[in-house]
């Protein structure tokens, strides 16, 4: 049945291309030449020990961090110092954070409509209508007028997902979306993510949820010391890892 889920998607053209991406923080090299391609409608799960550069990698893709060497091409646009390209890419790439990062001074509805209204310059009524639709999808339409502080962690993360989706992104990045959640809330977030994958969204997910990787991912990448050590389909990756590092990591985590 899991395979059925995946097989309903047909992968499209490459949409994110990274080639030899390097990144330093002062004297620490976080990325040591990462080369990978993600295709449209593909779900890529990135795993690896902490400090391995996996978060830095996906943060480079919407330029929350600027890479220093190599090329990143997102949806045919190369990420350079060009502010116009940065703005364009950021509005096409949604991102969900570990700490939710909802805006505490705005209601849930305002959190979702703010960016479409001012960045996409859409009329207010239209954005509100779409926001309600998204809240239905993530299952909490009744919370629209509450403030983030009044919601549970799982609800907050679902609002954060809705907030990203409101920009109608072509790619969604997830940076450990369930790490800050209590176990009973993880499922509700993962369900939303599964449904999103099912709907054909291109997703890059940094996570420690191996179940999610097995069930949904088209491809799993294993990061260590700033490089991709190993990648492959979940079946291949979890049952027959090639690399010693990968074996060690999996033996520790599973």
């Amino acid at each position, binding site marked *: 049945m899991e395979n059925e889920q995946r097989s309903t998607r047909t992968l499209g053209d490459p949409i994110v291309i990274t080639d030899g991406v390097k990144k330093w923080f002062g004297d620490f090299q976080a990325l040591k030449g990462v080369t990978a391609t993600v295709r449209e409608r593909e779900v890529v799960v990135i795993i690896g020990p902490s400090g391995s550069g996996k978060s830095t990698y996906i943060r480079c893709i*919407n330029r*929350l961090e600027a890479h220093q060497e190599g090329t990143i091409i997102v949806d045919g646009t190369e990420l350079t110092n060009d*502010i*116009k390209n940065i*703005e364009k890419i*950021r*509005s096409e*790439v*949604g*991102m969900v*954070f570990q*700490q939710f*990062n*909802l*805006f*505490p*001074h705005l209601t849930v509805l305002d959190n979702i409509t*703010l*960016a479409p209204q*001012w*960045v996409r*310059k*859409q*009329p207010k009524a239209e954005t509100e209508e779409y926001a309600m639709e998204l809240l239905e999808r993530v299952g909490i339409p009744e919370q629209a007028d509450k*403030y*983030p*502080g009044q919601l549970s962690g799982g609800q907050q993360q679902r609002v*954060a997902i809705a*907030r*990203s989706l409101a*920009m109608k992104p072509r790619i969604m990045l997830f940076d450990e979306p369930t790490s800050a959640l209590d176990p009973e809330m993880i499922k509700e977030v993962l369900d939303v993510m599964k449904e999103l994958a099912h709907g054909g969204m291109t997703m890059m997910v940094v996570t420690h949820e191996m179940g999610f990787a097995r069930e949904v991912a088209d491809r799993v990448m294993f990061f260590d010391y700033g490089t991709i050590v190993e990648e492959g389909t979940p079946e291949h990756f979890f049952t027959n890892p090639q690399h010693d590092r990968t074996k060690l990591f999996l033996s520790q985590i599973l």
Partner: protein
Amino acid sequence: MSDMAVAPDLELAPEPPPKGLRIWLRDNLFSTPASGVLSVAAILVVIFALRGLLNFIFDPLRRWDAVTYNMRLLMVQAYPTDAMWRVWLAVGIVVVLLAATFAAWRIGGMLEPRQVSKTLMALGGGIALAGILGPFSATATVLWLVVAAVLAGTGFATGRLTGDRAKDPIIPVMAIIGIILLLIVVVLWILKVPVPGKIVEGNLITDGAEAAGLRGEQVKVLRSLSNTTRMPWTIIFALGALAFVSVRMFSARAVATLKRVLVPTWVAAFPVLVLILLRDPVWRWGNFGSVYVGAIVGFSVVGGVILWFVSRPSTGEIGRVIGGLLLVLAFVSFLFPMPFVFRFLMLALALFTLAGPTFGGETSRSLVTAWVVTAAVLSFFVFTTASESGIDVPGNFFLGGLSLTIVLAFTSIVLSFPLGVILALGRTSTMPLFRLMSTVYIELVRGVPLITWLLVAFLMLPVALPQGIEIGGVMRAVGAMTFFSAAYLAENVRGGLQSIPGGQREAARALGMSTVQMIVFITLPQALRAVIPALVGQVIALFKDTSLVTIVGLFDFLHLARAVIPAQSQPFSFLGSIKETLIFAAIVYWMFTFTFSRISQRLEKKLGVGER
């Protein structure tokens, strides 16, 4: 330590320890021998100090009539009598707005009857003590004691009547404020104050104009307040109460609408009040038609076109470049002679253009509308300030006394706000030059005392300004205090900005917001909310600092109290009454700052608990 005893859930808490005066004294004053000695010494100090104070205040030689006779001088200085309605109108607007705001946002909270009862009884005790220690006649002492007994009795009754609910917060603060205001109104109608009079050929003359130049023995007489004082206050407080009560009876929906209206009203109220107080422009139609109408129409059309162009979604960067060029033009315009209205409109247009690409797009039509309205309003204000005033006044700036102090403080705080925010943003910026410039400004301004900046404004500014630009004394003081207070404000706001988690900025960036949008929608609202108590503290400090303008020769409240009144000899002599006037000044300043500091404390508590 008793509360540390481990008790099963259902067991009742032990009886509270018995209460009583003796036990309270033992616990709070005589817990140890050393504490006992300290208490006795402190009690002696209190008695001695209180007695000295009362003897000073009620000494028949004290010239309290110097204060009462000069009350209008102290409040508004030379403001013309027939224009006093403007002052009352301004006060009235503020009171009604305050009442509506308090009611709409439900500010105030509740008090426990126990607290109220305690405070009243303590107040009664204090008054009784004063009645006994003061230099009063037997009847006066009895009167004091009666007042004390009424207060203490009310307090006692409050405690007893509420009984079990004495510890629940059930008394609204606003009700108590209402009662106090009612009492003030009653007192205004029955109070008798000492005023000076002259006995000329057996006739008592208390009217200043009549007594001027006449020789005679000066005496003090007790008179009630005139109707020109007590009537306006009564009406204003009644209107305030009416506003409060009616807003409280509004439906939730109406209150929500009111809240949305009130914020811009407050913003607009500031210039409107200044206008009411200071300006009654003479409408020179020729001048208005040639310069102002032209300016409004021209700038509306040109600005409208520019704004419509730059706020189209496709014109991002070009818009910012045009805005930058307009900004340069606006700066340059200050170097060449031209009507002021052009300079201000140019500056405003530059700012609008810079904001256009960020906030335009779908809303470009409303941006153009906003610009036309701004241009018209701005021109109107420039016109009213630049043209002669119809209010018949001596000198070129006639507002003085307490009203000048208040105008100075609030103008400076309002003007320093944007500058302070910009400086704070600069200082927390990732761009090193902005950080450097802001840091240099902030440290330079804060490192040097305000009085030197005031002296700079008064000694140096006149020579450094381009020809044709003259700035009056009050504006110079406002300028110096604005630049000074902006540096302090910047440090407060910086604290708020730094308290925002980095994730907020990342989230805004990830949603594609530009830096300006991120600041306006995400970081600033949160930062300002976090520093509201500190900002109130800044208002207090600035209010106290306004007293410094007396050194550079402005006729503010303190200057009148310290230098003007104690030097009066005609029509009545108040020579040497400086201690009385200074004490009055101290009390007035104290009432303002104490109120503000209490508001700040409440806000701190409220925001600390957090509504998030």
